[in-house]
C-alpha cells in the first residue's frame, strides 16, 4: 500500500510536466513494471543479480578470437560501431586507472581525450607528420597535461576533486572552442589523415578495426599488468583508505601523480585514434557528458575490474546503436541506471576478482 501511494506521489509530481493523462499513464506504467518485477523476483526467489564467476583466461582467448573474426561478417556500419567501442574501451581503461583503481572521481577526462585528438589532428595537418610519428608526441602532450592537472588534484579529496576536474574539462573545451588561430575554433579540424602502416594507408574501416583492436589488446594487457604489480596495489590501497595507505608506506601523492598521468596517457591514445578515424575533430565531441559517459561505463562494469571496463564500454556503446529508435530515452535510462546501480549494485556487473 505504501508503495502504491509512493507511485501515486511520483505520478502526481510528474503531472505539471506530463499533463494529467500522462501522469495517469506513468502511474499505470510504474505499477505494471513493479508488478512484473515483483513477479519475476518471486519466480527467481531472490531479487539480487547474482555475481558471475568468470574464467577470465579462457574467456579472454575466446573473446580475442571472436573479435579477430568479427569484421569478416560485420557490415560496415557495425564495424564502425565496433571501432568506436574500441576507442571508448581504451579511454575507459585510462579512466579506470584513475577512478577504478585509485578511487579519484575525475569528471574531466574528456579534456585529455580532446587534447589527444587535437594534438594528433594539429600535428598531422599542420606539420605534415604521419600518425605514427605524431603519436609519441601526442602521448607526451596528453601525459604532460595529466601531470599538470595532478598538482591541484593532489591537494583535494573526493567530491572537491570531482568538481575541479569538471572545471578543468570545461576550461579545456572552451579553449579549444576559442583559440581560433590554433584550433580553428568551432569549425574544428578536418582532413586528419589515416594512419599508414609500412607505406600502406589504413583507410578502410576493416583495417582500422584491426588497428584499434591491436591497441585495445595492448592497452588491456599493459593496464592489467600494472594493475597486478606493486604500483597497482599502491593505487588500490589509496582507493580503499588513503590514510592507511600512507601509513603503510605508500607515497600517496606520488602514486596519484602516476595514476593521473598514466590515465591521461590512454585518453591521449584514444583521442589520437578518434581523430584519425573521424578525420575530423571539433570541440563538441569533448563535453562534460562525454566524461560522464565514460565514468558510467566503468561504474556499470565494476570499478577497478578490467573485464568490467570492457563489458561496460561495449554495453554503453552498442546498446544505443542497436536501439537507435529509443535514442530519446537513452539518457533517461542512463540517469536512472546510475542511481539504481549505486543503490543496488555499487560494485558493478562484474565483481572484482
Amino acid at each position, binding site marked *: 500500500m505504501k508503495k502504491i501511494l509512493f507511485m501515486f*506521489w*511520483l505520478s502526481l*509530481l*510528474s503531472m*505539471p*510536466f*506530463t499533463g494529467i493523462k*500522462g501522469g495517469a499513464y506513468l502511474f499505470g506504467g510504474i505499477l505494471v513494471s513493479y508488478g512484473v518485477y515483483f513477479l519475476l523476483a518471486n519466480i527467481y526467489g531472490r531479487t539480487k543479480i547474482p555475481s558471475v564467476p568468470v574464467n577470465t583466461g579462457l574467456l579472454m582467448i575466446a573473446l580475442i578470437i571472436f573479435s579477430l573474426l568479427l569484421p569478416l561478417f560485420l557490415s560496415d556500419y557495425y564495424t564502425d560501431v565496433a571501432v568506436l567501442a574500441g576507442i571508448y574501451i581504451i579511454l575507459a581503461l585510462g579512466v579506470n586507472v584513475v577512478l577504478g583503481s585509485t*578511487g579519484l*572521481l575525475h569528471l574531466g577526462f574528456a579534456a585529455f581525450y580532446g587534447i589527444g585528438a587535437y594534438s594528433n589532428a594539429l600535428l598531422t595537418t599542420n606539420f605534415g607528420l604521419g600518425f605514427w610519428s605524431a603519436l609519441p608526441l601526442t602521448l607526451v602532450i596528453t601525459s604532460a597535461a595529466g601531470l599538470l592537472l595532478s598538482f*591541484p588534484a593532489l*591537494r*583535494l579529496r*573526493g*567530491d*572537491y576533486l*570531482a*568538481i*575541479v576536474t*569538471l*572545471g*578543468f574539462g*570545461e*576550461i579545456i573545451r*572552451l*579553449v579549444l*572552442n*576559442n583559440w581560433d588561430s590554433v584550433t580553428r575554433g568551432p569549425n574544428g579540424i578536418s582532413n586528419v589523415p589515416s594512419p599508414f602502416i609500412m607505406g600502406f594507408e589504413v583507410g578502410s574501416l576493416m583495417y582500422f578495426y584491426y588497428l584499434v583492436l591491436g591497441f585495445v589488446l595492448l592497452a588491456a594487457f599493459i593496464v592489467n599488468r600494472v594493475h597486478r604489480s606493486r604500483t597497482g596495489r599502491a593505487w588500490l590501497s589509496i582507493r580503499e583508505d588513503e*590514510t592507511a595507505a600512507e601509513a603503510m608506506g605508500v607515497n600517496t601523492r606520488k602514486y596519484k601523480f602516476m595514476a593521473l598521468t598514466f590515465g591521461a596517457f590512454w585518453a591521449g591514445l584514444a583521442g589520437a585514434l578518434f581523430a584519425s578515424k573521424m578525420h575530423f575533430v571539433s570541440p563538441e565531441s569533448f563535453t*562534460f557528458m562525454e566524461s*560522464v559517459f565514460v*565514468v558510467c561505463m566503468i*561504474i556499470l562494469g565494476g570499478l577497478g575490474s578490467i573485464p568490467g571496463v570492457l563489458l561496460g564500454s561495449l554495453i554503453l556503446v552498442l546498446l544505443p546503436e542497436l536501439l537507435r529508435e529509443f535514442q*530519446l*530515452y537513452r*539518457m*533517461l535510462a*542512463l*540517469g*536512472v*541506471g*546510475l*542511481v539504481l*546501480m*549505486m*543503490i543496488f549494485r*555499487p560494485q558493478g556487473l562484474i565483481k572484482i576478482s
Partner: protein
Amino acid sequence: MFLQQIINGLTVGGVYALIALGYTLVYGILELINFAHGEIYMIGAYLGIIFLGIFTASGLTQYSLFLSLSLTVIMSVIVCSAYGFTVEKLAYKPLRNAPRLNPLISAIGVSIFLQNYVMLTQGATDKVFPHVIPVTIIKFYNVTMTTLQIFIIIVSFFLMAGLHLFIMKTKTGKAMRAVAQDKVMASLLGINIDRIISVTFIIGSGLAAVAGLMVAMYYGLVNYSIGYMAGIKAFTAAVLGGIGSIPGAMIGGLVLGLIESLGASYLSSEYKDAYAFIILILILLVKPTGLLGKSEGQKP
C-alpha cells in the same frame, strides 16, 4: 559603464546566491555535492511557465495579474520542493552510509535523468515566458535598469535574510545547525535526522524554484539545459564563500556575478563560462575553506 556592469552583475549574482544556498545547506548537513540541484532550479523555471500558462488559460491572469503571479510562485515553490524532497528520499537516503563517491554518482544520475525528463516532456526547444509582466526601464545618469532587475535584487536579499533568520532563530534552524555539526550527537539529543535532512532539501529546492522563476521572468526564455551551467556556477559561488556557510553563499554568489560581468566586459566574453571554473580552482588551491568558511579541525 562600470556601474552598469555592477548592477548587471548583482542581478545575476543574486540568482547564483539563491541557488548556492541550496548547495551550501545540503553540503553542510550531508557533505554531498547535490549535483541535481541545478536541475531543480531548471524545473522551478519550467514550473513557473507551466503554471502561469494554466492560470492564463483559465482566465485568472486577465482577472488579476498579481493574484495569478503570486499563485504561480506559490505553486512552483511547492511542487519544486516536492521534487527536492523526493529526489533525496529516492536517490540519496539509501546511500547515506555508502562510500562518499556513491551518492555523488547517484546525484549525477539524477541530474541526467531530470534534464532528459524535462526535455522529453516539454520538448527540446526553448520555452518562452509569456510577456505578461509590464517592464519599465528606469534611467538615471548613465545607468539603465528594469523594474524586474530591481525586483530580483530585492527578492534575493529578502530571501537570504529570511533564511539566515530561520537558521539562527527557529527551533528547526537550530536543529539543522546541530545536525551539520555532528550527526551522532544531534540524534542523541533527540533530533530526527531524517526529518531535518528532508527540511533542508525542501528549503533548498524552494529557493531554487524562486531563482528559476525569476530567471524565467527576467530573460523570458528557458530550456532544459540551463540547470547544468547555473548549478556549477552556483556551486562555485558556494565554495567561493565557504561551503557550509550561509552568508558565505550569498557573498560568493554576488562576487561571482560581479566577476563574470566585469570579466566578460573587460577581458573576453567568449571565456565568460571559464571565469567561474578558474576561480573555483584557484580558491580550492589557495584557500579551500572559501572566503567565510571556518577551518575545521582535521580528522584523519
